[in-house]
């Protein structure tokens, strides 16, 4: 276990370093510097700006400086949001992104598993057809269509929920549902498949033969095994949820870090882009580490390397 843990942590750190390096140099390759405005900038002023932000040094030196800086947990000043450090921006934006992402994950898991189990227990039945049909539909309706339509319907026309921004719990309802839908569908399909399969395993057959109540069979004998693929899915799903939230934040005017990312990428706000990627990557890598470890706890059959 200790060796497994060490290897995993080493890989996690290594991946993290690769991402940071990759993004650092990618941003520096981009045409158009961070201080290209639409009005003229005299050369002297531009030189002042570059010096103030450490951009006049050789790129390798900037890179080393950056690595040293983030190892201290400091993501630096934002090039564009001049009144904030990247740490302050992330602190303001991350809770919003995590709230939406977390709610969507809860919605997707609870409804996806419930629907999947129901369909998986009766494959080929009418319910199965309806559930799978809608799941496939859910996968086919992209959130770029779903989110604006939900917003127009429930926000503007019906006036039941706010049309954007944050400020009250109600502001999170539409974004989380819009974000959750494709994942609900994916989890439902996944659960259905593995429930249908687990249902036929010998230990379940034995339980059925013993005449145990249906609910007990499902909860005790089927779910623990059938949910393993869902658990595996959580790692990539967390990554996809966070990226999905980029669009959702855009549509619903949410002040999350996904929105910073798009704007910062367009504005060449090097440090902010780096900061968002660093935080996303760290978060996702940690989540995956956690999923892997809990996997081991849940399924003793897995031999750890």
């Amino acid at each position, binding site marked *: 276990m200790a060796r497994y843990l060490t290897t995993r942590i080493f890989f996690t750190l290594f991946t993290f370093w690769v991402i940071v390096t990759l993004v650092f140099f990618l941003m520096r390759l981009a045409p158009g510097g961070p201080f290209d405005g639409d009005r003229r900038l*005299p050369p002297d002023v531009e030189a*002042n700006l570059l010096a*103030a932000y450490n951009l006049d040094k050789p790129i390798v030196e900037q890179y080393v400086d950056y690595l040293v800086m983030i190892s201290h947990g400091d993501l630096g000043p934002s090039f564009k949001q001049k009144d904030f450090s990247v740490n302050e921006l992330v602190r303001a934006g991350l809770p919003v992104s995590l709230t939406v992402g977390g709610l969507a994950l809860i919605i997707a898991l609870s409804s996806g598993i419930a629907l999947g189990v129901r369909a998986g227990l009766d494959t080929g039945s009418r319910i199965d057809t309806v559930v799978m049909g809608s799941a496939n539909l859910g996968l086919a309706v992209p959130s770029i269509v779903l989110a604006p339509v939900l917003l127009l319907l429930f926000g503007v026309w019906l006036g039941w929920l706010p049309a954007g921004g944050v400020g009250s719990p*109600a502001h999170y309802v539409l974004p989380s549902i819009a974000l959750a839908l494709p994942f609900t569908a994916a989890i439902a399909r996944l659960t259905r498949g593995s429930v249908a399969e687990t249902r036929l395993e010998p230990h379940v057959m034995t339980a059925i033969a013993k005449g145990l109540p249906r609910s007990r069979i499902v909860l005790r004998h089927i779910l623990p095994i059938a949910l393993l693929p869902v658990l595996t899915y959580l790692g990539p799903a967390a990554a996809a949820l966070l990226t999905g939230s980029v669009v959702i934040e*855009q549509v*619903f005017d949410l002040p999350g870090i996904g929105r910073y990312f798009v704007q910062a990428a367009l504005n060449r706000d090097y440090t902010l882009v780096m900061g968002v990627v660093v935080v996303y990557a760290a978060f996702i890598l940690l989540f995956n580490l956690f999923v892997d470890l809990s996997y081991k706890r849940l399924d003793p059959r897995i031999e750890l390397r």
Partner: protein
Amino acid sequence: MPVRFKCWFVCLVCLGAGNAGIASAQALHLGNTGEPQTLDPHRYNLRLEETILTDLFLGLTTFNARGEIVPGAALSWSTSEDGLLWTFKLRQGLKWSDGKPLTADDFVYSFRRLLDPATAASLAYFLYPIRNAEAVNAGRLPLDQLGVKAQGLATLLLELEAPYPHLAERLLYPTGYPVPRHVIAAVGDDWVKPEHWVSNGAYVLADWRPQAQVELVANPHFFTAPLIKQVFYHPLANEQNAYNRYRTGEMHAISTFPAGELESVRDHLAAHLRLSPLLSIVYLVFNTTQPPFDDARTRKALALAVDAEVLTDKVQRAGNYASKSFVPALVANYDSAPLQHYVVENKLNKVALTQERQQQARALLAAAGYDAGNPLRLTLRYVSGADAKRSNLAIAAFWKRIGVETQLHHSELKVHFSDLRQGDFQVAQAGWFGENNAEHYLGLLVSDTGDVNYGRYRNDEFDELMAHARTHGDVTQRNHVLRQAEELVMATYPVVPLYSVGIRRLVSPAISGWHENARDIHPARFLSWQ
């Protein structure tokens, strides 16, 4: 399933509870066009920052509710005979929002801070009319050589490099705002944080949640108390979102809404709609260093084929105002020179007129060596965006009618203007807005203007006239020469003026004191609830 439903909502409530609720009905919620990048008036860059800064600070001169120039921190000012020395008398009893007195020395400090190379202010050049400003900003002269002096507590003297009659207008911008020296001395760059905030405008910064809202509250030490005590600016970069949130009542006024909704707004929200032209010009610029755009015939042919009225009225339908001249018609005390082909007396109807212009354009192209067998192919560059896309596709269609094949190329604002400044384009859309004087616009075509003369246009005769105009301290004389210069330069078609931007806002009828104006500036202190 029902149990699970309940769970979600419990979770929703727990997680969301951390955020404060929408403020009381007293507060004013305004949609801004995006997120400010800074609220330091010397480091600002964007119009949407100007909007907020106007509420937070008071310069020597300022706007009234109609966007006209009126006394601000200075009650009166006078100019010397030669136009080189300006004397500003400050208002009595001016105070910072922490109660400390504001003196002429604070202005001296602030002008020096703006031009200090260490501040790295990208708009420092706004105040280059002041003596030695350029040299100080470049670090060639020490700060105390800047032509700004205090005379006692309440008199400020500004010495200029050359006569500049539009100084009162130049001082409207945040670059001319005073910043609190005593706070900056104590906390450094952190002075812009809400907890340290001190300013001299009608409001002070109470809170700023990035990408969510900027909250202002009334400044108790301002000389007239504003009627609305609390103002929120929300960054609504997406027009559709702004429109949605206005309709749900979350916003009391928004800066713009989708152009396609204009008809529907006219029908359903007529009392809310505010349309007004902005002092601005959107134009096409030719790279005059590159063939075939170094040939005035080619440029004229392309200009002739563009119908600015069809563009604004049929294609955009966004409330923009077609422009016949490069200097916007809105500029005061100035009679802009329309493009030559608009001047020609013509009794033909619209259709025949268009056909005649197209024929003329084809003839010009033929003279320049292009015909059906050898069509002119060009790339037209513009800034990404749905509205811009529509306009530029229409322009490509105009040119197609005279046999020109247009390739469209769009890029982000940054990249677009960066490339334009480096002269990396053939034909591009550009825009210029801001001041209420002709040289602000005509200056773009002077050969030594630098890289904002995107097309690297050079016309010695025009340059001389412009230099001559700038020796006059008197506005009328100056404008007279400028007008000659404009006429001269427009005959060679270095640019094709298209339109002045039309501002389309939605403003709640419950707000009073809102006046449309050419600068589209609406300080919150003039607004009130009905």
